[in-house]
């Protein structure tokens, strides 16, 4: 009860921080523009002539998130450390976990909001044809989980440094690995020389592999577990790093 109240207070403050600066609006506008541009211009939404968002819309998400999510997550801890408010936050009667979860949830909700604002695309496809809305919904769920995984990775890198730029760059690199591990050209290259089990291990770390199912409308518990465990592990690492700083 108390735990939840503390998490809510932290999350509320964090969400307020996004919207008190232009960052939130810039982020949302850029995300929506990218979605629109890639879906209709590059993704060939109209040319495909199919009532689906799988290829034209969701295929781009891992790449959008590569740059946009680290931009959202980079300030989470780096800014607290730079300004010194970390000391204030962690001497308040809350646990480190409550702070970590509160901050993470706030950013994740914010990403969810950006995602929800792409609804005109769903309306468009429903207007033009009769898509399977269940598949679209599962795509959205998968996309949100994937964003959460990226975000959790950004939490780690943000806790490691007091410079937002460093946090951004490092988390882009890590997230890039998470994409490339399952990116078809890379997988084909791997299959050329590596043994099949190694290819399996590498691709199992990829967000693309796990996002694939969601895009097709398959809610596989293994995929859900993958994203949730990646989030859990990353947040745990964040707490270890924060504790490490304080232990000196």
């Amino acid at each position: 009860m108390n735990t939840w109240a503390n998490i809510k207070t932290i999350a509320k403050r964090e969400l307020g921080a996004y919207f008190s600066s232009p960052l939130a609006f810039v982020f949302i506008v850029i995300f929506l523009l990218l979605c629109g541009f890639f879906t209709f211009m590059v993704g060939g939404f109209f040319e495909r002539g199919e009532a689906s968002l799988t290829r034209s819309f969701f295929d781009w998400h891992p790449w959008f998130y590569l740059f946009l999510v680290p931009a959202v997550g980079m300030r989470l801890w780096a800014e607290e450390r730079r300004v010194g408010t970390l000391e204030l936050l962690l001497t308040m009667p809350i646990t480190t976990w409550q702070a970590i979860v509160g901050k993470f949830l706030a950013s994740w909700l914010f990403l969810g909001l950006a995602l929800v604002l792409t609804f005109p695309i769903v309306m468009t496809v429903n207007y033009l044809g009769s898509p399977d809305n269940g598949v679209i919904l599962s795509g959205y769920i998968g996309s949100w989980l994937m964003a959460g995984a990226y975000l959790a990775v950004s939490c780690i890198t943000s806790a490691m440094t007091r410079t937002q730029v460093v946090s951004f760059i490092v988390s882009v690199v890590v997230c890039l690995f998470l994409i490339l591990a399952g990116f078809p050209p890379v997988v084909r290259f791997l299959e050329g020389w590596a043994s099949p089990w190694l290819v399996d291990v590498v691709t199992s770390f990829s967000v693309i592999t796990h996002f694939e199912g969601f895009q097709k409308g398959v809610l596989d518990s293994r995929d859900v577990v993958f994203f949730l465990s990646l989030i859990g592990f990353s947040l745990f690492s964040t707490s270890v790093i924060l504790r490490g700083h304080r232990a000196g």
Partner: protein
Amino acid sequence: MIKVDNLTKLFGAKRAVDGISFTVERGEVLGFLGPNGAGKSTTMRVITGFIPPTSGCVSVGGFDMVEKPIAGKRLIGYLPENAPAYTDMTVSGFLGFAAEIRGLRGEAKRKAVTRAVEMCFLQSVLHQSVETLSKGYRHRTCFAQSIIHDPEVLVLDEPTDGLDPNQKHEIRSLIRRMGEKKAIIFSTHILEEVDAVCSRAIIIDRGRIVANGTPQELRQRSDWAGAVTLRVSGLTAEAVKEKLSQLRTAKKVQAETHGTRITATVFPRTPGDQDLTREVLEATRSWQVEELHTEAGRLDEVFRSITLPDTAKGEAQ
């Protein structure tokens, strides 16, 4: 309320705090003095549970800060060094957040914010963003945050740093008033503050306590404690010096000529010796003494004599 027992904190190989023990009871205001890098902030960070001790233990209100940090933190109000605050919030938003995280809701929260705002004179900037505040206001905003839940224990790291003389005065009298009912520990570089506010002072140097006592007791350790300064006319400096040097309890005499007057200071053999004043009075009965007073001792001098030799040694190594 605050109990620090044999606290040691290492940063790598560096001993930031080295076996410190002290207690602060309710109704006490403890001044924490020491040169830069002596370990003041580190000690305060351990007390508030921000960093864990390497060894030793710290408890606040009976709660061990390692075993039961949340219960301890509830009792503490903390003003960190440099008074950090969320720059993207307004003053009222920030204080509201601080109140909420302390478990205050609704009417209780509103009252707490109003009270803290009044005590810290923040009415005029209530809806301004923290980012746009001047240093003094930002400092007071963070101070307001620390007293928002009317804590039993206050830990203040340089609470008057960066304030103008009026604001310093306000904050000092606030600390003194609150010190009647709370246990307060605050660090400072300003020695006059110790006199103005503290009931007890601790001087630490390179991680160790080198002096612990009331401001009066500390002052007694000064060469100036019990020294007698007098101003006479109609005599030469040499004559004054000679006469006063012969006193039984006098250690040395300084005399300077200002026009027709001589200003002389007699230092006692043992600091704080009350006999010296009487002796000086007797010896100068026939002189034209315009002014005579006994020095209470100087804290800055005690501070320097305790901390300086060690610092110099450290630099030499």
